[in-house]
């Protein structure tokens, strides 16, 4: 009894914290999105409405911005995965030096996010480090700054650790004897990876994808700095509505739409995790294990 009571008491501050900082702001946003005291769906309708009669759906201005945000976030996530998985694998594999490698890898994270992104500004700009470097080899200068590419570079650079760390953790904690069992039964390195290591690391990949995609699709800082403001993402739109235009209703409606979309996509990704790994495995076999 006493323990139960104690537990309850300790849960209260957490519940309160949860409410004040997560539930309440969400509720307020939702409330604003429906027009506050005067209930209306106008702000949602505005998001989907065409500029002129018969404008194709995906060319409508806000929809297009949303699609573009998703597109850039997906590209960044894919690049983060392609770069991050081997990196995580190497970190986990050469565990004897892991502390040092990991340290090297994490050092940039200690620097402020804005500063890190500003650093790329100086690398990518017309007279920047990159062009100076290319110049040394007599290569033509590039004009990357304020392009999609620059935004993607900024996202990949900033979010790569969030892809690497969860995958690294899963790989590091993987039971080595399972890998040995696969080798023992005749699997070569590639087969061990494809049949055992990768499937078992899927939860880490899902965390990584989530943690890169979500900030990627909502970012406005990176697109502000490296996209030069002309490359507007949905994050910028929301920011503008709140901080410049002052239309909290429309800003909230956009935030809610974005949130629903992200939830939906996360739900889709999570499905991968529950798929039986082998086509022949039927669903009933999972029995109670399906949660």
């Amino acid at each position, binding site marked *: 009894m006493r323990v139960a009571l104690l537990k309850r008491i300790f849960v209260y501050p957490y519940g309160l914290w949860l409410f004040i900082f997560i539930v309440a702001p969400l509720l307020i946003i939702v409330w604003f999105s429906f027009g506050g005291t005067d209930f209306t769906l106008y702000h949602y309708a505005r998001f989907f409405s065409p500029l002129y009669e018969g404008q194709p759906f995906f060319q409508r201005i806000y929809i297009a911005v949303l699609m573009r945000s998703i597109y850039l976030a997906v590209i960044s996530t894919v690049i983060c995965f392609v770069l991050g998985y081997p990196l995580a694998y190497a970190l986990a594999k050469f565990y004897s030096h892991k502390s040092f490698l990991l340290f090297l890898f994490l050092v940039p994270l200690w620097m402020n996010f804005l500063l890190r992104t500003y650093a790329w500004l100086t690398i990518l700009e017309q007279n920047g480090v990159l062009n100076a470097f290319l110049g040394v080899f007599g290569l033509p200068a590039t004009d990357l700054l304020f392009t999609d590419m620059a935004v993607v570079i900024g996202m990949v650079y900033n979010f790569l650790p969030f892809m690497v760390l969860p995958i690294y953790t899963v790989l590091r904690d993987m*039971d080595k*004897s*399972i890998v*040995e*069992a*696969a*080798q*023992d*039964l*005749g*699997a*070569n390195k590639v*087969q061990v990876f494809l*049949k*055992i290591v990768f*499937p*078992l690391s899927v939860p880490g990949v899902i965390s990584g994808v989530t943690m890169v995609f979500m900030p990627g699709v909502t970012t406005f800082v990176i697109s502000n700095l490296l996209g030069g403001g002309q490359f507007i993402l949905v994050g910028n739109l929301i920011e503008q509505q709140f901080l410049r235009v002052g239309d909290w209703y429309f800003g909230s409606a956009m935030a809610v739409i974005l949130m629903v979309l992200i939830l939906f996509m996360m739900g889709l990704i999570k499905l991968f995790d529950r798929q*039986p*790994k*082998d086509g*022949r*495995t*039927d669903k*009933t*076999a*999972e*029995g*109670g*294990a399906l949660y």
Partner: protein
Amino acid sequence: MEHFVDLIGITKTFGRELILDNINLYIDKNEFVTLLGPSGCGKTTTLRIIGGFEQPTSGELRMDGENMLSVPPHKRKVNTVFQKYALFPNMNVRDNIAFSLNLKKEKTAVIDKKIKNMLRLVNLDGYEKRTTTSLSGGQQQRVAIARALISEPKLLLLDEPLGALDLKLRLDMQLELKNIQKELGITFVYVTHDQGEALSMSDTIVVMNAGKILQIGKPKDIYDEPKNAFVAKFIGESNLTDGTMLSDFAVNFAGMDFECVDKGFEPNQAIDIVIRPEDIVITSPADGKLRGVVKNVTFKGVHYEMLVDAHGFLWKIHSTVLSPEGTEVGLTIAPDLIHVMKRDESSIA
């Protein structure tokens, strides 16, 4: 004759610790070899070297006369039942067992048939679709056995494969494994803590302690003629005492002179004496060589275990005839049942 597997002077150190110390062992085709020894003596390490998961610091490993040390684990025709099962958590029971066959691209129909047989063999009929995490320890262990057996390897390494089973199932599986081994003609290297299991299943027992092989022999030879006190203590129950060799065929222990069948010791050499509990005969006090009082009686199922206090030593005696506590008794021991062993200080744990 060429041996099937040869371990020649295998030594293994981890850091500064000497884990295996000059292991020499050969294994013939179709032989059932058991490694027996206390925890940490290097049994698993020996198996891992044969399986290819550990490289010895020095020494040689040959299979069919070929050097194996440069061959990676997946190319060795050796399968292992791991001490911790190591089932694949991302696959169900069927796919775990089918793993090696799938790699060999066997036809699904063939695989299904083999799996059905295998599951029957390990008493898990109808478990194909179960997830490995939903199985009990003993069931997981049996899946691990099935998975290693299904591809009929030439050599099977089993690291305490029956450790998680209850007595009944364990005895059943002992019989099964022994039958499988004989029928399929697979060579087994088997690790166990359980000396009963070792004695009943093996063709050859290898007794190890602290990284060394103490004795290699047939179960009966090891039981009857343990090389030293450690082996005697580890295999079967025994009365262990110290004594002195008087001359050939004469030994002194418990303050008395006894006739024995051993020779070739120095006069007055200090030796160890081992006498099995079932080899001491209880007689009337007058007829006994030693005389004492029964201190404690335990019923063990088939026999009684009696502790008799005689000549400053508590003798453990097994007999189907009960001598109640407090009875005065005599004890006799036949000369050929007195085992005289050189004292080997290093082997006494």
